[in-house]
């Protein structure tokens, strides 16, 4: 993740925009989206710009904490990772 901190502002913006699109939207197969979010903390800490990605990151991190507190389903076996299942629909982004 050192790469994140070597980016100049334009590159960082570009990465954040990409992150914002690919994490927040798109098709989802219920229960099949599993991401490791440990490094997102580093991206978050490197931010000086308030763009949508911050909210995405907050939501993912919040979800991780919630699942760690109340583990169930897949998260029960892997509480260190967040499993996202769309925005209340389960499938279809």
């Amino acid at each position, binding site marked *: 993740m050192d790469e994140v901190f070597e980016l100049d502002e334009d590159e960082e913006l570009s*990465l954040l925009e990409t992150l914002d699109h690919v994490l927040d939207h*798109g098709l989802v197969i219920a229960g099949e*989206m599993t991401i*490791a979010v440990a490094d997102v903390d580093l991206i978050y800490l490197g931010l000086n710009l308030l763009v949508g990605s911050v909210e995405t990151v907050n939501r993912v991190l919040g979800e991780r904490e919630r699942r760690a507190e109340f583990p169930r389903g897949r998260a029960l076996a892997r509480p260190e990772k967040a499993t*996202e299942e769309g925005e209340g629909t389960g499938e*279809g982004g």
Partner: protein
Amino acid sequence: MSLYVYCLGDELTAESFEGLRGVGGAPVCVLATGGLAAVVSEFEGEAAEVSAANVRAHNRVNALALARSTPLPFRFGTLAGEHRLAEYVAANEGALLDALARVRGCVEMSVKVRRDAGKAKVKRQKARGGDEEAEAGRDAAAGVDVLKGSAGAGSGTAFLLAKRREILGDEALRRRAEEVAAWLAAGVSDFVRESSVRVGPSESLAVRAAHLVEGVRLDEYRACVHELIGERAELHFLTSGPWPPYSFSRIERE
């Protein structure tokens, strides 16, 4: 071993992705599933790490797909076995084909409108101040003993007054964001097939809009947005695209 899934399409061929590496450096390939083609790569492990390299790899594959036709992109981190993927496509084929028809020939363009964080804070304080004075007048007229600030008030009262000011400030910001969203929507309406807009998601980010724009009208759309940006010097705009239609790939479950 599972598959990392990038996107679905009905006009995607294996030749388009020849030699391309995806998430984790794995070769990208195309898998026929039902009447659709899925762009995938093999993936080892239980979860896709959110790293700059992986996020870029995910987007690189979908951007290449977009250069060939308009795909339905999956979210980052979608892993599925071949059987599970086939099952998903079979169960939702009608909805997926409808979604593909809806976005065909289009790209997603993004417009984010930010207030300057410093200015937003000042405006917020002014909004609170103005509302507080107006409220003080209303309360005094109603014979209510108004507590100015927190002087003489208990900590509970001070907290409630502060909370009230915060809520009123938030409402003022939201109204302002809604005005900006309406202005933007009206400005681009001639060039946009569909929009997905979120208003006032945070204090500094006023509007977050995704526009589905036909590829052949992209230049007109860009010129229009450029002109709109010139009209509102007090706002900051962050525009990006073309993207695969991430914000327009939702389907109704079948």
